């Protein structure tokens, strides 16, 4: 059913269709609207006997989900930014225990400086925690990926994060095609756990494992991700059959098959990149894009195939490693190992900085001429940086950087004064 609605509410309704049995909620912007809407749906009896637990922290939110999942319930939670970091220990634990929890990440920057706006620093920090990570480009993607996420998680007994850009998607009203209950029911069977706390058949979950077996247990987790590389496209194909739309999968190419330059990106920025690709194509530039949907597991072979004929690759990402550059680009390089294709990184959209078509047109243009800085920090205000560097050089006690920069810009609270 076509609906015009807020992204968070669309995700909440999709989650409800997936019939979770335990939902744990803790507020953090920009994810909050999802759990707010879910609380209403539970109250209204839309999710059967689902238990909605208001917890005291994100660490507790995921811990409650861990307990619920181990006891055989389909468990869901959502978080963002600091919340994801606060639950880090439980994030690794859920994966280590092989519990098929689904968690939405409303992607948001990490402080300090505190910032509530979008980038991918949060989920990228958890990229190696053993969770599958799927990134949504649109709110339609977000709906569809959540439905596939439960299926994938439970089939492989591995937790899945569905990452959607905070505000840009979570707070955007746009058209979505909301699946109906019967379709989801047909696609997502009841949760059949591979391990369960059961008084009739008591097992020990979470035993201590020493050097004699730890590597094997960890390898088996790796193996699940290798399996996921096979299973994700299968689940997408099955999804298409039931829901009548292509959604999910490992990657999605856009006009990239014959392109000399291919842009790789994750999340909502892919939409803007599609527009930029079209404009450049109209100017005769041979350019395309590849959306990476599954970042973990990383689609090594699929991406290598999609990039094999490219003369150059540009990775646009919303997070970076200090002193090194991009994060996703490392995985892209791994996929292209042995090839000499130049790979450029554009770091953009940090802390909610708009990624404009104009800036991408310039940057891609420079890349096509192989004249781009690598990594390129898109739309960086060098005056501010130079001023602060000069100040720090001049004076030992130069003060807090964030405050200095805001003063230089004449900004207080994000508005000119």
């Amino acid at each position, binding site marked *: 059913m076509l609906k015009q609605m807020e992204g968070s509410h669309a995700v909440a309704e999709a989650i409800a269709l997936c019939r979770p049995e335990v939902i744990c909620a803790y507020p953090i912007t920009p994810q909050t609207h999802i759990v707010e809407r879910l609380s209403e749906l539970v109250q209204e009896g839309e999710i059967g006997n689902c238990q909605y637990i208001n917890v*005291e922290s994100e*660490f507790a939110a995921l*811990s*409650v989900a*861990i307990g619920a999942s*181990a*006891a055989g319930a389909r468990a869901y939670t959502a978080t963002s930014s600091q919340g994801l970091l606060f639950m880090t*220990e439980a994030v690794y634990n859920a994966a280590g225990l092989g519990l098929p929890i689904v968690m939405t990440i409303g992607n948001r920057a990490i402080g300090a400086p505190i910032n509530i706006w979008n980038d991918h620093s949060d989920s990228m920090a958890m990229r190696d925690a053993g969770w599958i990570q799927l990134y949504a480009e649109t709110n339609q993607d977000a709906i569809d990926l959540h439905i596939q996420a439960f299926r994938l998680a439970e089939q492989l007994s591995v937790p899945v994060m569905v990452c959607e850009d905070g505000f840009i998607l979570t707070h955007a009203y746009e058209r979505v095609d909301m699946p109906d209950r019967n379709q989801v029911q047909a696609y997502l069977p009841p949760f059949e756990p591979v391990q369960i706390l059961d008084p009739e058949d008591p097992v020990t979950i*979470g035993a*201590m494992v020493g050097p004699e077996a730890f590597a094997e247990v960890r390898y088996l987790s790796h193996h699940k991700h290798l399996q996921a590389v096979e299973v994700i496209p299968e689940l997408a194909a099955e999804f298409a059959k039931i829901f009548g739309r292509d959604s999910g999968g490992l990657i999605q190419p856009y006009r990239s098959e014959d392109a000399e330059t291919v842009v790789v990106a994750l999340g909502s920025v892919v939409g803007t990149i599609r527009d930029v690709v079209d404009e450049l194509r109209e100017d005769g530039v041979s350019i395309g894009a590849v959306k990476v949907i599954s970042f973990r597991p990383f689609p090594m072979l699929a991406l290598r195939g999609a990039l094999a004929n490219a003369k150059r690759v540009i990775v646009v990402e919303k997070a970076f490693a200090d002193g090194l550059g991009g994060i996703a680009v490392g995985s892209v390089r791994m996929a292209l190992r042995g090839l000499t294709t130049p790979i450029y990184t554009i770091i953009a959209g940090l802390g909610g900085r708009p990624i404009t078509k104009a800036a991408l047109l310039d940057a891609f243009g420079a890349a096509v001429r192989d004249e781009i800085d690598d990594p390129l920090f898109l739309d960086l205000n060098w005056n501010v940086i130079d001023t602060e560097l000069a100040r720090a050089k001049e004076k030992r006690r130069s003060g807090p950087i964030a405050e200095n920069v805001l003063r230089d810009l004449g900004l207080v609270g994000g508005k000119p004064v």
Partner: protein
Amino acid sequence: MAQKIKFYQTGTLTVGNRLLDAENRSVQSTVDRSNSLTSGHRACQGCGEALGARYVVDTAMREADKKLLAVNATGCLEVFSTPYPESSWQVAWMHSLFGNAPAVATGVAAALRAKGRSEVRVLAQGGDGGTVDIGFGCLSGMFERNDDVLYVCYDNEAYMNTGVQRSGSTPATARTATTPTKGGSKGNVFGQGKNAPQIAMAHDIPYVATASVADLHDLENKVTKAMGMHGARYIHVNVPCPLGWGSQPCETVRLARLASETGLFPLFEAEDGIVTSVTKIRRRMPVEDYLRPQRRFAHLFKPKPDVEALAAIQAIADRNIRKYGLLD
């Protein structure tokens, strides 16, 4: 026709089952006890926690008609019971992290509620570090939501699993690896540490109790009572640790008894935030008798008695005795 027997008439405060009516005998003395924490685990000799946990879990199992799920915080109990590839647990048991056992238990209880399995009960366990320190946020959250979980804290008054470091439950003057007594310092300082049972009571949860491995009948009775209720319940059990306390393994039960008989570890029950019963001190003992056998307090006696510190500890005991009315 059996006469009414008091435990001290049996010559022991711990068992004495043979002289009791069948219905008054301990769960542990029955042949059909569940042996949930079965033998072969790797606890130290004289471990108070292993003793306490055995009584707690078997009693909970009986009260739940064996429909029990257990959640455990990281700590000695977890480590000594589940070294790969062995497990001592004959109960469905899970361990997640150090600081989240109460929240994991909440999740287990929520799953059971979602599935309509109200007959299955949930027990969570942790040491004092996992309970009063790192897990305290989750514990308070579980209390405040009144989730249907019995949480049992085995308090040995320091982080024993990591090599005896101070916790928020370590008593004043105790020497630990992080409150040393070298160079004239006096161990853990006065005026710190938290009273977890009192804080639990402040949540107005249905049931809070303190218990001791010196009175295992009482411990069993309290677990039985707690299992007869629903909502968040908390039992805080005093479990001496020979390794961390520097005591003889054979002294574990005696030290636990002295902790209560001096007034340092009062035994009481509270319902809905109000104290409903206390275990009276039968033979009041000076705190010195409790402190002297423990190497963690050795600096209070050598090279010469630290009169001031001993008086301050006695004052704590005296205050407890007044506060809880521990003497007739």
